[in-house]
């Protein structure tokens, strides 16, 4: 343990935290101590954690603001759900089908990230925020006018209504415009979700501490200095952004394969959702992956656990947001925390010495 570098140790704490939560939840579930509400929330939680970590890569490490993360999630969700629906008969093995769906979702979302990134990441300033904001809305609206059906002659496309697809008898509509995709197989499980969280963390943390990651952070901290030492700005920016988009696509795949209906509404894939993910990142601490995970867990669970308060839960949720913000970011709170931790550590050192 001693030989490990500080960053490795820090990363290990993050991995261990996820694994520990997983084990605790598994034990509680097997002994029947977890309510069905919480059980139902486990898979969405995994999706939100991955979203928060992936957005943190853009916001915390790359230092750019993305307001369209739900758009990438939407791309991942719809492409993978489309694949799963088509391949339901061709590939009856759940695991294999889900694995391919994951790859497709991630690839599609990543490709969208590259498409947007190529022109926008060359610019300085807040252009990425503006363009991703628009992207999220565009994707949502495109999905809402898209009709795709399948019969023995192959696929049929339309942007009008499902009647103009002209399907033969026995053909079925797969994407039905605003009604979205219904009947996606429920393949996402908590174990897969946790495994994907670990994979996401592995990708993001390793990128952070790699050569490329250092370059990305150098760009964030001082673009001109980074440019002057010969770092290819657009390349590294694009790298971070497309990885972040692809991971959001993975979260979309988990989300889509957890519910029987998938519709693109402002509620789940709109601006509000993007902001919610951003809230996870900001409250968890920008650039702090562990914080993102914890913030995502708290802020997803909170409104559900407060259900018994009915109308007041929105109010309390808002108050908790403000309290968390103050605790994390206000200078006085930071000062108090530092004082407190110093005292705590002194106490510990003393006891350690006494023990020795």
């Amino acid at each position, binding site marked *: 343990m001693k030989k490990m570098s500080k960053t490795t140790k820090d990363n290990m704490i993050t991995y261990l935290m996820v694994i520990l939560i997983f084990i605790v939840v598994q034990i509680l579930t097997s002994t029947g101590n977890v309510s069905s509400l919480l059980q139902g929330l486990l898979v969405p939680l995994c999706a939100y954690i991955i979203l928060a970590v992936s957005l943190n890569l853009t916001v915390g490490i790359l230092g750019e603001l993305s307001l369209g993360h739900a758009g990438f999630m939407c791309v991942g969700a719809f492409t993978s759900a489309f694949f799963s629906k088509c391949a339901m008969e061709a590939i009856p093995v759940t695991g294999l089908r889900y694995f391919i769906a994951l790859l497709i979702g991630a690839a599609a979302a990543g490709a969208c990230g590259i498409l947007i990134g190529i022109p926008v990441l060359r610019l300085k300033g807040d252009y990425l925020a503006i363009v991703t904001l628009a992207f999220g809305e565009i994707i949502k609206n495109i999905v809402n006018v898209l009709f795709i059906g399948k019969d023995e002659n192959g696929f049929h496309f339309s942007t009008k209504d499902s009647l103009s697809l002209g399907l033969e008898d026995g053909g079925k509509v797969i994407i039905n415009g605003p009604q979205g995709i219904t009947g996606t197989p429920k393949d996402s499980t908590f174990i897969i979700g946790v495994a994907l969280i670990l994979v996401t963390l592995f990708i993001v943390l390793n990128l952070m501490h790699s050569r490329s990651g250092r370059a990305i952070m150098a760009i964030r901290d001082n673009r001109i200095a980074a440019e002057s030492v010969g770092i290819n700005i657009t390349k590294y920016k694009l790298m971070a952004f497309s990885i972040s988009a692809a991971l959001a696509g993975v979260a979309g795949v988990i989300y889509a394969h957890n519910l*029987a209906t998938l519709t693109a509404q402002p509620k789940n894939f709109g601006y509000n959702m993007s902001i919610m993910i951003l809230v996870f990142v900001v409250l968890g601490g920008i650039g702090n992956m562990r914080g993102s995970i914890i913030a995502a867990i708290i802020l997803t669970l909170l409104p559900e656990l407060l*259900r018994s308060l009915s109308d007041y839960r929105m109010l309390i949720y808002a108050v908790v947001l403000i309290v968390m913000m103050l605790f994390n970011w206000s200078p006085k709170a930071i000062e108090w925390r530092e004082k*407190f931790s110093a005292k705590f550590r002194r106490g510990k050192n003393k006891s350690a010495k006494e023990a020795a």
Partner: protein
Amino acid sequence: MKMKKAVSAILVAAMAMTLMAGCGSKSDSGSDKAADAGSESGSVFKIGAIGPVTGGAAVYGEAVKNGAELAVKEINEAGGIGGTQVELKYEDDEHDAEKAVNAYNTLKDWGMHALLGTVTSAPCVAVGEVAQADNTFMLTPSGTAVECVQYDNAFRVCFSDPMQGLESAKYIGEKGLAKKVAAIYDSSDVYSTGIYEAFVKEAENQDFEIVAAEAFTAEAKTDFSVQLQKAKDAGAELVFLPFYYTEASLVLKQAAGMKFSPIFFGCDGMDGILAVEGFDVDLANNLMFMSPFTPTSEDETIQKFVKDYEEAYGQTPNQFAADAYDGVYAIKAAMEAGEVTADMSPSDVCDAMKEAMLEISIDGVTAKGLTWEASGEPSKEPMVVKIENGDYAVVE
């Protein structure tokens, strides 16, 4: 650097504690409830209901909540179901499939025997999937999409979308109301597109022609002049409006403004148009729509329901409230017919109720002699209502 690490460690601990605290209070409240339930275990029927009471679709969820509460109150005053009192718990789903599943799980933890819900279609399909896996009985008051009742444990009170479109087209064709028909529909709404598509399909078999089909979306539902102009240019004698009354009132106003006066024909969502604030009821004269429920009907049951509802909530009930009211009575009838007791598990209750649903017949506010088929669809005839002199009049 060390300092920062310690700080972050404490932060994590604090956050984890908040989390634990959250869990703690949750399990506390859970055990409280369990204790409550324990003290009267087996003495109360628990009916869960899910619908939006916040967000854009809140109007529908509120109406269902009120209608269901009214019915439960009446049942309890009359001695409950087979002598057992009924408890209703209503959970908000914000018209979101994910939240609806969470709401369903909350109700499951509470020990729900049967579910009245959900109110809107997309969440209903998602909940239906979970309810089927658990074998929980569900009766949706107003989930109109076909997939809502795709499993044998699910039933509905309202008409399905395709059925309304089909019946509308049949009615227009058989009565010879018009030869040239235009349709305006909300392409972002499941309900509206569902009816529209079935209407177009059936129109092929009928003696009229669809001369214009114009769509609008939820983002642009205030200006209909373009759609109306196209319908007018195409020489439409009848305009089919399969959407809700708030938008329809605007359509009627704008049509009057451009001196376009075809027959307007709507579906059950049109019910309530006379109550729109600031709406000139003269504009609605001769408007026809299909509805299972009219608050002005002289039927005794309906009169009593409307009076009680107005007393309790200060507004005239719409069809959502009526569907929910009938839904609770249907659950009551099925529970009695299936000889369900409150100490049975939800799965056993479901098995008994889904058999019983096929045998019961209730005289509700949306239909007389309402029965259900194994497919989950209710068998009731839609009525066509025409507005005359600022009031609803049943044509047949």
